[in-house]
């Protein structure tokens, strides 16, 4: 019944890390469902608790539980152990629409703009993304568009120097101008992918949200049709506020993909389920560690397997 978990590509190393990160939920579930107990209301309540403490949120939790109950009735499930599979299926149904890998071959240069709140991991993710694309044999150029935070530019430049990637930066000034330059430089040099950093901003700061809208407009001016992808970087530690981040940034910038970072901690990133329910946007990548290779495409089957502690 749960065969999709067996035909996954072998990425043992990082998958195990993802699983380690998410294992608390998994082991809670295993404890709860492995005992051969009967399915009753207490069990559902426990399931609800586990989902809520994984940041799945009230709405998505109700949706998932309703689906599980339906399956129990339909397939006449009687054992607690079967609930896990039922839950995995419910989750998969919810998350599968989010699994749309990023296609960067459609334009050249392909412009990717990153946005997010302060401390979500934008600049770090850019480093990892650059590595990811380099490994695919593509040439990459970075635009140091975070002109606000102290030393954000230096952080990117230092990273670029270490990894032999060109970074376009200016001494001071305007994010839009830096990125505008970077787009032109990429065109002139025949670069495949441009990654544009922006300063972190809280969605309540209207003037900063206006500024980032301008950045997007200026990119479109530099290269009509660009940016081809707007990635919103989300910290997996974030709770239900992630929803309002998705909403606000999407309203401002038309976000086309999400990057979920810091999944290697104890945070479970269950908020992805909440997002899938309330405001679905494809999850392009997940970050599962500090290493440069630790940013991977989002595969819902693996994510769910790790979340629920199932054998992959």
């Amino acid at each position: 019944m749960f065969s999709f978990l067996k035909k996954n590509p072998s990425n043992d190393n990082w998958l195990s890390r993802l699983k380690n990160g998410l294992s608390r939920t998994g082991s809670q579930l295993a404890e709860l469902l492995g005992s051969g107990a009967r399915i009753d209301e207490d069990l559902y309540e426990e399931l609800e608790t586990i989902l809520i403490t994984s940041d799945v949120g009230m709405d998505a939790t109700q949706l998932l539980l309703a689906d599980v109950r339906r399956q129990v009735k339909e397939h006449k499930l009687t054992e607690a152990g079967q609930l896990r599979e039922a839950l995995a299926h419910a989750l998969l149904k919810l998350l599968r629409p989010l699994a749309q890998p990023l296609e960067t071959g459609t334009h050249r240069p392909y412009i990717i703009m990153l946005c997010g709140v302060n401390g979500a991991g934008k600049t770090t993710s850019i480093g990892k993304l650059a590595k990811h694309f380099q490994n695919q044999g593509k040439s990459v150029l970075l635009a140091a568009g975070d002109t606000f935070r102290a030393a954000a530019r230096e952080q990117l430049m230092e990273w670029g120097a270490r990894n032999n990637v060109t970074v376009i930066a200016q001494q001071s000034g305007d994010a839009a101008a830096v990125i505008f330059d970077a787009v032109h430089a990429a065109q002139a040099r025949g670069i495949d992918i441009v990654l544009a950093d922006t300063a972190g901003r809280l969605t309540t700061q209207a003037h900063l949200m206006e500024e980032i809208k301008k950045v997007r407009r200026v990119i479109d001016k530099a290269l009509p049709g660009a940016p081809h992808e707007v990635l919103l970087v989300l910290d997996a530690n974030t709770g239900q506020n992630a929803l309002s981040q998705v909403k606000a940034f999407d309203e401002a910038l038309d976000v086309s993909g999400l990057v979920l970072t810091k999944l290697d901690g104890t945070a479970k990133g269950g908020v992805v389920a909440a997002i899938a329910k309330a405001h679905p946007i494809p999850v392009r990548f997940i970050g599962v560690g500090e290493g440069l290779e630790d940013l991977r495409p989002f595969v819902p089957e693996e994510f769910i397997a790790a979340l629920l502690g199932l054998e992959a």
Partner: protein
Amino acid sequence: MLDNLTSRLSGIVKNLRGQARLTESNIQDALREVRLALLEADVALPVVKELTNQVKQAALGQEVIGSLTPGQALIGVVNRELTKLMGEHNDALNLATVPPAIILMAGLQGAGKTTTSGKLAKLLREQNKKKVLLVSCDVYRPAAIEQLRTLAQQLEIDFFPSDTSQKPQDIALAAHDWARKHHHDVLIVDTAGRLAVDEAMMAEIKELHAALKPIETLFVVDAMTGQDAVNTAKAFGDALPLTGVILTKLDGDARGGAALSVRHITGKPIKFVGVSEKMNGLEAFHPDRMAQRILGMGDVLSLIEEAQRGVDIAEAQKLAKKVQSGKGFDLNDFKAQITQMRKMGGVSALMDKLPAQLSQAAAGSQVDDRQINRLEGIINSMTPWERSHPELIKASRKRRIAAGAGVQVMHVNQLLNQFEQTQKMMKMFSKGGMGKLMRSMAGKFPGMR
């Protein structure tokens, strides 16, 4: 901030208001709403359970059941329990030791440790008159040291240089030495962000703590953190003898449930909250005020304190006199008010602290910081004579001013209208004599109708 929880809870009260008495059955509905609201505010589940239990116990007592306004009484109970959960009163930093008093900052990646270190240094210098030294032990994240150095430079705070090739412990000890020799009162040690499950990194900060023996070990946590706040706080609390917590990014629209959880789980007081990107955006945490804020009562006390800090007293008295006399309030004063408001963190910072109904009304009038900037620009394009004699400004002067400020004549008219209204309001106050407080408050809001 916390608006959603606020409106939610006021919704509950509205429901209760319709019913004459609180009974076992209708309190159940109210409590379910409270539970839902708290969960959606990212308050950790165990904390939610405990809180709702306590509220239930208290609410079923005589105090609420017997009350003719059960809704009010219930809010009172929730308020009290929230305050209790967040730790009753404000705990200040303990710096009573042989100087330099060492403050160690710890937390996850991206929580805001470096920015907060800078803000804390500024706060200690300005409010406690301390000589502060900043040092970064983050040898991992590219340019992390550079970030703190830049901040220190902006704030004109002493900075102890370090290098990524050094060991964190060596850096910290050298900085300690330097601080002692140069008579610094406080040494703030910024560290790299780390995951609680990263054993090597946790061992490193434990060693750092053992070597430095800091008097304050502060756990920096993002207000947007979800349910996992409990686990992280617990792990850091187990590894390090924390003395307090700093809650950052509270100016976002996160409902800030982490504030409720963290204190409860670690048993450590929240000492400060970060409320703005600006370098003065760090405030002492007041649990009672925070609870009131959550319940939509606004945070007027913080606002007043802020006003006292940001306002030039002599300037304010001069203005007060002018207002009292009801005449002579001109565009120069109007501009002075704008400047003072800017010092207090701008309109948005003030709005956060107003009671829910008031801030909603204010939001309706669409005052934002950009508009305020425009007002200032227009006034700057006037001659001093025009500023003290606004009635002189007629069509051709308006055109010149508009051109100078890069706006339309319409905007100049708007400004003059707003000014007139403020002037009228001032006159009203001086006649009505609405008490000193209200007068000084009204002075803070030029352009707000």
